[in-house]
């Protein structure tokens, strides 16, 4: 009996060893091929971090710094010249922001950067209350619409109908000093928050490129979910769906467009955000402008395609991006006007983007096999 057991255990050990050896052998003898490289998520993550995300934050930081210093100049001596400079750098920083808003995972998510930088429409009442109360808490969700770019939009462009009237709020108004203090508070706060995110990325980078899995909490999972959510909720809905009423019975809300007070940059902001998504999808190097390892190359290496036509999924998605982009180009720069006078064109952008949302959310996520739940699964 005893020897019977022993013999079998030896057999079991040998077999396990053989299987293990077979499994290991394949790996050591085959040099990596280019196809393998396309499926190497570490390469993709490294490229995205080093050549897109981190430099994009760097670019944004430069623009934001300029805005802060122009803001300081304006607050030291509020006049037409300083206001114009402040406004111009606000536009530039806002536009640059659209290129980093999509990285809403890791440090940006931890700092809830988007919520503090770009929740609109701005709350005029909230802002005015905060001006009166310099100790108002700006860390709570209720304060999201009272700070960031939309609040500055109101404070720089929306206080009066003429520039003279606006300037008066910073010069002759009884609470001018308090208003200046609040603007200062907002710009420094944005600066501090961004610094935190940039600093965190120096350490998070290592985590980011080492978590190469596709499970919950992996870099791909966080990034793709954040990316898709950004496209769906913050570009499609936020910039087009909500103002045009496409999602709510066709009841339009032109006052809910981005940069509502400045108005004529709303299309540019949307286009910039949309282009940033396209560029990120294609792995476009911020420094060189060349495409690199990305969602696109990964999907292509996986062989994801429409089996009916043979067209690659990456190409289909890029075509859909281009279609949405084309529809946006047909809009006037002032989306507020567009909602009021030419709303079907706004709804058309929403509808076109919706097609891309489905592809990103379903086709791309499924092709990449990204896990969205943490519970057991036997493949439906």
């Amino acid at each position: 009996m005893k020897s019977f057991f022993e013999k079998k255990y030896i057999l079991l050990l040998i077999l396990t060893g053989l299987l293990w050896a077979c499994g290991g052998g394949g790996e050591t003898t085959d040099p990596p091929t280019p196809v393998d490289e396309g499926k190497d998520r570490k390469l993709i993550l490294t490229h995205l971090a080093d050549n897109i995300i981190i430099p994009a934050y760097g670019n944004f930081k430069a623009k934001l710094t300029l805005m802060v210093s122009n803001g300081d100049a304006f607050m030291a001596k509020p006049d037409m010249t300083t206001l114009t400079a402040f406004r111009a750098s606000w536009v530039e920083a806002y536009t640059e922001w659209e290129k980093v808003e999509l990285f809403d995972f890791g440090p940006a998510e931890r700092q809830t950067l988007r919520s503090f930088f770009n929740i609109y429409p701005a709350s005029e009442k909230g802002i005015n209350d905060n001006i009166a109360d310099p100790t108002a808490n700006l860390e709570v969700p209720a304060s999201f619409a009272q700070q960031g770019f939309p609040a500055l939009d109101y404070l720089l462009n929306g206080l009066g109908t003429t520039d003279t009237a606006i300037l008066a709020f910073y010069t002759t108004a009884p609470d001018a000093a308090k208003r200046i203090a609040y603007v200062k508070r907002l710009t420094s706060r944005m600066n501090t928050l961004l610094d935190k995110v940039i600093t965190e990325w120096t350490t998070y980078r290592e985590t980011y490129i080492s978590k190469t899995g596709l499970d919950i909490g992996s870099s791909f999972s966080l990034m793709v979910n954040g990316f898709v959510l950004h496209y769906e909720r913050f570009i499609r809905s936020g910039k087009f769906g909500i103002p045009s009423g496409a999602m709510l019975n066709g009841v339009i809300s032109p006052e809910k467009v981005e940069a509502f007070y400045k108005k004529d940059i709303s299309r540019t902001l949307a286009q910039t955000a949309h282009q940033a998504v396209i560029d990120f999808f294609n792995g476009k190097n911020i420094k060189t402008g060349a495409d690199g390892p990305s969602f696109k190359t990964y999907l292509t290496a996986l062989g994801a395609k429409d089996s009916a036509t043979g067209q690659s999924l990456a190409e289909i998605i890029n075509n859909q991006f281009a279609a949405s982009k084309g529809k946006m180009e047909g809009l006037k720069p002032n989306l507020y006007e567009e909602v009021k006078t030419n709303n079907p064109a706004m709804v058309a952008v929403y509808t076109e983007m919706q097609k891309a949302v489905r592809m990103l959310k379903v086709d791309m996520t499924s092709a990449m096999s990204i896990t969205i739940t943490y519970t057991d699964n036997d493949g439906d």
Partner: protein
Amino acid sequence: MQQYLKQKIPAAPLAVFRIGFGLMLLGSIIRFWAKGWIFDLYIKPRYFFPFYGFEFVKPLGNATYLLFFVCALCALLVALGWFYRVAAVGLFLSFTYIELMDKSTYLNHYYFISLVCLLMVFLPAHVYFSIDAYRNRRIAAAYIPQWCVDAIKLMIGILYVYAGLAKLNSDWLLHAQPLRIWLPARNDMPIIGPLFNKDWVPYAFSWFGCLYDLTIPFLLLRSGTRWLAYVAVIVFHVLTALLFPIGMFPHIMIVAALIFFSPDFHKGIIRQLSRWFRVPETTGTANSRTYVPRSYILPVFLVFFSFQILFPFRYLLYPGELFWTEQGYRFSWRVMLMEKAGYAQFTVIGKNDKRMVVNNNDFLSTLQEKMMSTQPDMLLQYAHFLRDYYAQHGFESPQVYVDSYVTLNGRMGKPLVSPETDLAKKEDSFQHKSWILPFNDTIKGF
């Protein structure tokens, strides 16, 4: 046949199975509890998807913890063979109740466990090496009818063979789907990871997996191939456990497959256990007795297994592609066959000119939304929930429409339901759901 039914076998294999199965279940429940899933899956969500005909089975709020406790306690009692009959009935009822509470947590292996629990209610797994047998000499027996052990083997055999049959389809064999999608996702694993970048590997896994499922019960039955087959069981299930998030299933199957070994092997295990825990192996006088089960049990088993053999084929009664419509998909051992993902955005319209695009996160958990968006019966259940919810919130006789989009095994996504179908007016039944849009592709095979 008469001859076969009279054959007896030492009670050891079934006793070992009872202990292993009970402990694995106990472990499963503890794991489930420790991960916080009782709250996440059965208490937190606002809505639960009942099974057709079992709408009365609902989570019990905080008492759901009590339900899991009862289930765990019954599992332990079954393992110990203490108040066995009551515990087995309790285990079957509590476990099955848990699995019926929400369709979105459906797993084939939970179904398997429920069925085995049901068999265990009738099987004399407690007549040997159990507290019951120790305390009550009258039920103690060293032998049981051969068919009592074979019933478990048959159940395991059905699971494997049907899982294998389900793999005999063009997606699995000719396109290596869905493994072609799933395996590259694990290419960062140490040692074997780089293999998953090779195009032939998903094919090899698919074909071996299919062959494994179809042959393993027979290889386990034959004494000549048994050890080799068991090694294959271990390798196969350990590999699936490493590669896929399938929870306890691999471990349960590795333990369950021990039933195929000889009585001597199981006696060896029991001798070892009795030495470790210093408990008597058998109960003296009962050494030569054979347990005689109640006479109604055999016919009951006959009906049970006939049902098991026929039920997975019910999909043949429905038109359309099974993987697409999922009519007759569950309870048929279709495991790991599909990479299916979807998107479902509902619009509710009231007669009083009210309109609402639903944010599913307001009502469903991530898991529920994922399951609902690809399974037509769940789409319908959710649509009805929305209809009733919005009817109570100011919408006059609400209509419910869905913008759905589903991808299956790497095909480009497309709508599962026509956006013009008012789901509020469709009723669920075992009839074909004619409102499911056609798949417009064929997956050949079972």
